[in-house]
């Protein structure tokens, strides 16, 4: 077992790692950016060390040298990278190894470079798993058009080390190809801090996205846990998670489970991993293996009772996977929604700021993880996820209703959130039927249409009443626009924030 673990991450995952490390009787140390000084992870850690700002203003959680030096200096036994940031960074993994510090990420006897999506995909193909057509990995621009012509559109350009929805770009036609390639390479350099290698893969519009968490200890004891349906996304990040998947047949589930067992045994995976599939028209394609604990794993934990964060650390510290399969629950249904401080009406533009009031929903079978509180500052510098809201029901129908009511109770003032959109989505007929695919919320009209559905005629009247009352009583406020000038007006609605987008103050 480890004595001391350094957690090099932030937000909910860092707080969850701090807990898990302490539950295992080890000492939890957190390395943090000053922006996160008020976070739960810093509050609850056994010791907290602030990271210096970096010279290029990139996030300190990506600063390999600084974190490795701190880990050495503090003589920790292991580093937990959480997800994102350095979780799949080979340079970081190697630097820790050189100093004799364990890296809490899955290992494979079969593949050294386990985080490389392209290498693992090739391995899966050799193990007999169906895969989507794709190219070799490459760096030079000259291969781009050649491979794209062979695969044909639509296709995806993927960084071999991408994660968290960053480092992927869907290309619909040749015109978009070069710009997409440059964008992915920029992201590798700036946000992923990884090598510029990419590969191309056939894009499957409307496919369902399903993931299976897997634990496998040093002795080869393996547990494949119930799958997560992650088919509602924005910018490849999950908005909703369900377990079990409402669209997976028992036959398909058991086939995928045995394929997973074949694969992880061949690769001799040691630790925790998530095996992802795309499913369309009854065909399942192996997509990738991720080696980190994702936000959606809380759904599997709530369904089964297995604390994946803790088990991950336990087995990678040399512990046995001692879970009695008889204690794992596989009944009932869990649905969860991720709450982001963002404005879905303005292309999901981030909405950082101060949380003025916060009322978290609570109640029977309503479960929340939140790192905001009244007075908390949502930093503009980081991912905008502020909470996970999960509910459990005996049936899917019960769970959806619970989530809908919980979303009505969830109140945040001071920053905009996706709560109304999530409420509208969950209560929609399309969602209830299970007809939703990862691009469902891409179109602004679709999002607007969904939110309109939840407004009653009476609420429209009340909104009109409040508008009139507010003008009547509060009068006209001083305009934020300078006399005779207009570009500050509605600028936030006009400004589009995408992975990389251009915007101009509206004239």
């Amino acid at each position: 077992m480890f004595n001391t673990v350094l957690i090099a991450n932030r937000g909910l995952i860092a707080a969850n790692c701090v807990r898990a490390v302490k539950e295992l009787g080890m000492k939890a140390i957190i390395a943090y950016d000053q922006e996160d000084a008020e976070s739960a992870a810093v509050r609850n850690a056994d010791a907290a060390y602030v990271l210096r700002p970096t010279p290029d203003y990139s996030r300190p959680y990506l600063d390999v040298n600084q974190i490795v030096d701190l880990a050495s200096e503090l003589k920790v036994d292991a580093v937990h990278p959480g997800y994102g940031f350095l979780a799949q960074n080979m340079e970081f993994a190697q630097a820790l190894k050189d100093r004799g510090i364990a890296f809490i990420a899955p290992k494979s006897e079969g593949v050294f470079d386990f985080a490389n999506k392209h290498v693992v995909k090739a391995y899966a193909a050799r193990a007999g798993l169906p895969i989507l057509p794709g190219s070799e990995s490459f760096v030079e621009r000259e291969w781009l058009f050649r491979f794209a012509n062979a695969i044909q559109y639509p296709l995806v350009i993927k960084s071999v080390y991408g994660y968290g929805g960053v480092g992927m770009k869907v290309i619909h036609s040749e015109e978009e190809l070069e710009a997409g390639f440059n964008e992915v390479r920029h992201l590798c350099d700036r946000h992923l801090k990884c090598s510029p290698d990419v590969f191309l893969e056939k894009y499957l519009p409307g496919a369902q996205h399903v993931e299976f968490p897997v634990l496998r200890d040093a002795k080869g004891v393996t547990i494949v846990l119930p799958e997560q349906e992650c088919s509602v996304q924005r910018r490849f990040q999950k908005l909703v998670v369900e377990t079990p998947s409402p669209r997976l047949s028992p036959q398909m589930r058991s086939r995928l489970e045995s394929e997973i067992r074949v694969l992880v045994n061949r690769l001799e995976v040691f630790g925790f991993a998530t095996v992802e599939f795309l499913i369309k028209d009854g065909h399942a394609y192996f997509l990738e293996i991720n080696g980190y604990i994702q936000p959606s794993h809380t759904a599997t934990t709530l369904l089964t009772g297995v604390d994946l964060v803790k088990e991950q650390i336990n087995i990678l510290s040399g512990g046995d996977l001692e879970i009695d399969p008889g204690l794992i629950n596989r009944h009932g249904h869990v649905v969860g929604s991720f709450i982001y401080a963002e404005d879905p009406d303005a292309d999901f533009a981030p909405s950082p700021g101060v949380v003025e009031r916060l009322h978290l929903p609570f109640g029977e079978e309503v479960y929340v993880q939140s790192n905001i509180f009244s007075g908390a500052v949502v930093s503009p510098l980081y991912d905008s996820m502020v909470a996970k809201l999960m509910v459990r029901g005996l049936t899917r129908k019960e769970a959806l209703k619970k989530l809908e009511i919980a979303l009505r109770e969830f109140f945040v003032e001071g920053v905009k959130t996706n709560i109304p959109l999530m409420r509208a989505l969950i209560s929609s007929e399309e969602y209830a039927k299970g007809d939703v695919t990862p691009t469902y919320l891409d179109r602004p009209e679709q999002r607007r249409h969904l939110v309109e559905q939840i407004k009653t005629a009476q609420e429209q009247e009340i909104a009109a009443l409040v508008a009139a009352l507010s003008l009547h009583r509060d009068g006209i406020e001083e305009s934020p626009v300078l006399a005779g000038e207009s570009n500050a007006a509605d600028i936030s609605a006009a400004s589009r924030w995408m992975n990389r987008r251009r915007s101009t103050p509206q004239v």
Partner: protein
Amino acid sequence: MNYTVRSGKTHSINIDRSTDFSAPFTIRVNDRDYSVAIRKTHSDGRIKSLLINNRVYPVEVQRRGDGFPSRIFLKGVPFDVNIESVESTRYKPDQPERSVSGDIHAALPGQVIKYFCGEGDTVEAGQPLLILEAMKMENEILAPKTGVVKRICVREGIIVAKDDLLMEIGDPE
């Protein structure tokens, strides 16, 4: 006072001039009476939470450039509103002249990562001026008009608040 407000449909709303807002009061919307009480106000007196027909509504009012309410949030849910007419004219503001400002404000909080121009440079409308980074995303700010960079107000690396002035573009020389 009679108000005509579009929110979905068009609604006719009557608020009595002599209403005492410190006690519960009634507002007629179309043909229906709503009982209203102000539960909480902000420190500057603006409405924060209402009791309408005995139901609690936390409210937020977003206003247009001319100060008229444009969007009402009822417990976080946004409703687009447009006050189409007011019986009295005392609320009618002059229409501001629409000219293009050269002041570049931060549309949202973020960190200034890089400038593509310096003070004294001539820039053309649409040309990239700087990159503002927030929440894993980059926002490339383009010049709203052609002109000369008069002033760069914020250093690279600085974290700015919403509406902070980033740079000024003057008229071309």
